């Protein structure tokens, strides 16, 4: 019941917020924030109560829904999905606090609309992470497009209509392929079991023949690769992230995109083990291309929001790389990376959002010398940037290195290339910092840019604290992730390669 | 009598009706042609029912009649309204609903 309750709280909240009178925007916001915080509490309860000794699903609940097609309302979490849900529940209230006045500046739409859309989105995302019925997952996967569509299209920048439509079409096309593959999978399961099912655990136990696997895999992979996004299916992301409000961008890039990589981890690998192994080399190449491509194009951007969007494409390359390495370090690293990336990119988007809303421009060239007029802001920006470039001591470093270590064991060239990516990460972050924060401030900057205020600080600071704390104590998260990862390895029948040199007396 | 003859008659009636719908411009005539087609279909139904000795065709024919009656009411009403506003019953004049 707990998971259903957790999923319903934001939904109820959004309805409640929507029913409030439009004349009291402040009340609407407070109510919305309250519901988001309750969700956070419930999700923390879920994570704290998680049994770290097993990688199987926990808190499982299943109700019949459309029995004729073997569809049921099945929810359940393992370490990976539970952490992602907590990340979502943390980022939603933070995005709300950071974007407290964003809706007021919008030309269309009201504050209560904005906040109630965010809550619907949260509900859908939690549903997608917790769903263990493929059909139910699909419902959430598609349903979450609409709140985001309106969040971008109503509250975004000048090009918002274009960006929102592009996002929607991309996602729908991806979803279409997934739908086709899902129906195919249903037919296969009907042939194997007699009655078709969408239940994920049952599907993983099927013995699908490799040829069919390879076809069905592609349908799912395409949907997830668009969502993740991998080069060359990525061009919706920079537009969407640049046009949306910073809070929306945080949720879009930090949380919603994780559904794609989570889908790879949670559905693709367990259900299609043979196909995953078959396609892994190609996908690893694609991931490495993403790492470099995203980083290089990020360096060439003149718009800060687009720049961050492209760095995310680079980071998603790392995540996908770790997933398709299949080693425990790769998988754990990739899962942990998803959480860290949400926090670090969120922090970057929010700080830059503060700056952009003050200066009224997203062009890097319009800044310069911010450090002089708003040192604390510059410091926050630098810290978020350092976590984005995976500086040791930040949690993103742990995950990035785990991905590299996991990949190196099975695919050395890919790992070596990916390692070179860390130089590019330093270039795009520090060059941006140099151009925006250092130097002598121009007159416009001095006049418009003010120091970060208390509300803004309270949104960003928790993220930075989390990033540093998890950098030194990543085991808190990894302890939950490891059993889930082992379970995935069991499904695909892959075990870590052994080091050739076994040292006497150093083993456990 | 050979049942094929009924079907042949139905086909001829249907063709005449279809021809009328395609080439005539007066809405009333077009309307009459549509009725002709419907009744051609009815004839085929009834003939088939007689041939097989079941009731299915008869039931279908009754349905068609009911629908046709309803359609006549709605259709004529529309034609009368168009005639009132445009002073013409030509269907080519009523071509506003396009791209």
């Amino acid at each position, binding site marked *: 019941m707990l998971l259903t309750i957790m999923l319903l709280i934001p939904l109820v909240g959004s309805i409640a917020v929507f029913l409030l009178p439009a004349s009291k925007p402040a009340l609407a916001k407070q109510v919305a924030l309250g519901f988001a915080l309750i969700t956070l509490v419930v999700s923390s309860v879920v994570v704290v109560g998680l049994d770290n000794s097993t990688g199987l699903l926990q808190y499982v609940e299943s109700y019949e829904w459309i029995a004729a097609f073997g569809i049921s309302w099945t929810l359940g979490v393992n370490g990976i999905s539970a952490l992602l849900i907590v990340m979502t529940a943390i980022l939603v209230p933070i995005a709300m606090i950071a974007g407290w006045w964003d809706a007021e500046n919008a030309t269309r739409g009201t504050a209560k609309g904005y906040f109630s859309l965010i809550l619907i989105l949260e509900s859908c995302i939690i549903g997608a992470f917790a769903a263990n019925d493929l059909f139910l997952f699909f419902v959430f996967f598609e349903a979450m497009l609409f709140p985001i569509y309106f969040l971008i299209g109503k509250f975004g920048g000048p090009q918002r209509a274009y960006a929102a439509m*592009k996002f929607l079409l991309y996602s729908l096309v991806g979803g279409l392929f997934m739908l086709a593959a899902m129906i195919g999978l249903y037919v296969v399961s009907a042939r194997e079991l007699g009655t078709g099912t969408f239940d994920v655990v049952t599907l993983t136990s099927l013995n699908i023949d490799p040829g069919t696997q390879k076809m069905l895999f592609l349908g799912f992979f395409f949907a997830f690769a668009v969502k993740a996004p991998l080069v*060359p299916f990525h*061009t919706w992301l920079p537009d969407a992230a640049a046009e949306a409000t910073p809070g929306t961008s945080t949720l879009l890039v930090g949380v919603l995109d994780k559904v794609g990589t989570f889908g790879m981890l949670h559905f693709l690998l367990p259900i299609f083990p043979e196909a995953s192994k078959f396609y892994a080399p190609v996908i690893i190449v694609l991931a490495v291309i993403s790492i470099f*491509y995203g980083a*290089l*194009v990020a*360096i*060439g951007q003149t718009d800060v929001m687009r720049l961050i969007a492209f760095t995310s494409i680079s980071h998603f390359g790392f995540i996908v790389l770790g997933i398709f390495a299949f*080693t*425990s*370090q790769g998988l*754990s*690293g990739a899962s942990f990376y998803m959480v860290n990336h949400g926090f670090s990119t969120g922090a970057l988007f929010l700080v830059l959002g503060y700056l952009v809303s003050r200066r009224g421009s997203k062009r890097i060239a319009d800044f310069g*010398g911010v*450090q*002089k007029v708003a040192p604390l802001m510059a410091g926050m920006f630098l810290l978020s940037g*350092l976590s984005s470039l995976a*500086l*040791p*001591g930040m949690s993103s*470093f*742990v995950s990035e*290195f*785990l991905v590299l*270590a996991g990949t*190196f*064991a099975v695919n050395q060239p890919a790992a*070596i290339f990916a*390692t*070179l990516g*860390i*130089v590019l990460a*330093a*270039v795009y972050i*520090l*060059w941006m910092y*140099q151009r925006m924060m*250092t*130097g002598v401030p121009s007159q416009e900057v001095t006049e418009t840019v003010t120091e970060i205020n208390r509300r803004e600080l309270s949104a960003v600071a928790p993220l930075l604290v989390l990033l540093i704390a998890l950098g*030194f*104590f*990543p*085991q808190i998260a990894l302890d939950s992730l*490891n059993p889930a990862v082992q379970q995935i390895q069991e499904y695909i029948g892959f075990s*870590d*390669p052994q*080091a*050739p*040199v*076994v*040292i006497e007396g*150093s083993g456990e | 009598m050979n049942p094929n003859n009924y079907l042949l008659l139905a086909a001829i009636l249907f063709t005449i009706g*279809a021809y009328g719908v*395609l*080439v005539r411009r007066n809405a009333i005539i077009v309307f009459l042609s549509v009725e002709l087609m419907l009744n051609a279909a009815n004839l085929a139904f009834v003939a088939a029912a007689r041939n097989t000795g079941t009731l299915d065709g008869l039931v279908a024919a009754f349905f068609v009649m009911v629908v046709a009656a309803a359609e006549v009411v709605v259709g004529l009403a529309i034609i009368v309204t168009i005639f009132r506003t445009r002073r013409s019953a030509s*269907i080519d004049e*009523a*071509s506003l609903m*396009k*791209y």
Partner: protein
Amino acid sequence: MIAALIGLPLLGAVVLLLGGRRTNAWGHLLAVVMSASSFFIAAMLFMQMVGKPEEEREIGQFLFDWIAVGAFQIPFGFYLDQLAIVFVLLITGVGTLIHIYSIGYMAHDPNRRQFFGYLNLFIASMLLLVLADNYFLLYLGWESVGLASYLLISFYQQKPSAAAAGKKAFIVNRVGDVGLALAILLMFVTFGTLSFEGVAAGAGLAAPTTVTWIGLALLLAACGKSAQFPLQSWLLDAMEGPTPVSALIHAATMVTAGVYLIVRAHAIFDLSETARTAVVIVGAITLLLGAFIGTAKDDIKKGLAGSTMSQIGYMILAAGLGPVGYVFAIFHLLTHGMFKAGLFLGAGSVMHGMHDDVNMRHYGALRTMMKVTYATFALGFLAIIGVPPFAGFWSKDEIIHAAFGQNLFIGLATLLGAGVTAFYMTRMMAMTFFGEARWEQDVKPHESPAVMTIPMIVLALGSAFGGMAMLFIGDIEHWLEPVTGFAYPQNSVSKAVLIPITLAVILGGAGYAWLCYGRRPIPVDAPTNVSLLTKAARADAYGDAINESLFMRPGQYLTRSLTWFDAKAIDGFVGGIAAAVGGLSARSRRLQNGYVRSYALTMFGGATLIALILLLVRL
């Protein structure tokens, strides 16, 4: 205890950086106290260690499991042995002195508190680097010192050149970090562990090529951090930072981390001839390159930076010689840490008195105005050029001796380097303290306050006697032997022959410089009609130009073309599909012409088609 060593300065940094303006008044004092107490703990640990028998001197401290995923088991633990303790003493000792010095040097800077916060952060990171008990934790320290270095180089953030220099240092260091990351990855897949012990124990069992690759990757890391060829270019720009920073980070401690890494990983280098040769070659090239750059610089700090590169080149070279050199690499590192820090502080003191002017052509005749600075600088000068019995003599001479045992050319390179060192240092002395005054209009040189001169005096004493103390009282060869191994060089020239030759070369270099700069007046503006070699040295041997044409330009071209590709090709393709669909629908909507007849005809056609198909299928 070991954790407290790191924890205290870290605490200081956290308090100062998070405390904000409230800590402005006493922040610098807190930083000094933190650094000093760390030094006292270090001294205590050292005394304890001395008191123990040789085989019980290593102590470890396990804090918690940092990362544990599958075979990737990384403890957060420290390891203190004879090698680490000398580093700890150097870092906290010199660090504390420089903290004290900075109180005076940064007295008028509005961001002094921040500066001290960063300094404490640096001390903590550097201690973490040398106290880590595995390569992965070392990596954490390794990049954290890089961060501190970045923050301190670009401390004057409003100066575009400082901001650019900080960024450059970080990025070039990152290239080196790729080496360290790759080395760690290789170690992990080969040995399944990253602890120093485990790697050392397994090195002999691994495939020789793997060991060589690990060695080369470690060398790349060392090149980045220690500003060795070909990653040397950042160090000269790093002089944009405040001078105490140059003394502490870019002379005495952080830049020598590469030497520490190689010596710490000696188990790898002992087994790979190729990797050692590469190390020696890199060291030899850098020691000559750095000295060469140092000869032509008019900027006193850049001259010293060139010298630092060159001296670290000596250490790297020594470390590449294997067991005959490890000990002397560390020995030279320690003496260098003292005399180079002293020289930098002296330079800072001079700048302090000269309105932050760094151009030596505007100095001259300062020996009477700044007596203490002059005296301490002179002691450092004697130590660096290797005049007996000052510190540099003992360590450098041993390296030259060991180098001749390896290879004649390497030996000659070290000897030549010693001569050039004498040349540029004499030039610096002559231009700064001798000759006639060439001061700018409103500059009135004055001696620095005691808070600055006392650290200089302490370091000068170290430069004078530190070498002897370590060699004769500390017996450094045998102190480090349990960690690094030690061997006397074979087949080398006898010391009795070598020392006079070395001294002659040094004297030649110094004398020639004195003829050029001490006896002749020095033009206030740098002469432009100079030889190609001088031009090359002034341009840092074209290091930046090469980097720019090899990496930056093509990189910029690549990013620009990829950005274009992204907007035009990929997005263009996607947009093209949308446009095609749009165009198609614009055409096809013309079919909706509003004529009932044409709709009916279409319907009729469709119905006929279906009928035909049904018929055909039945047939």
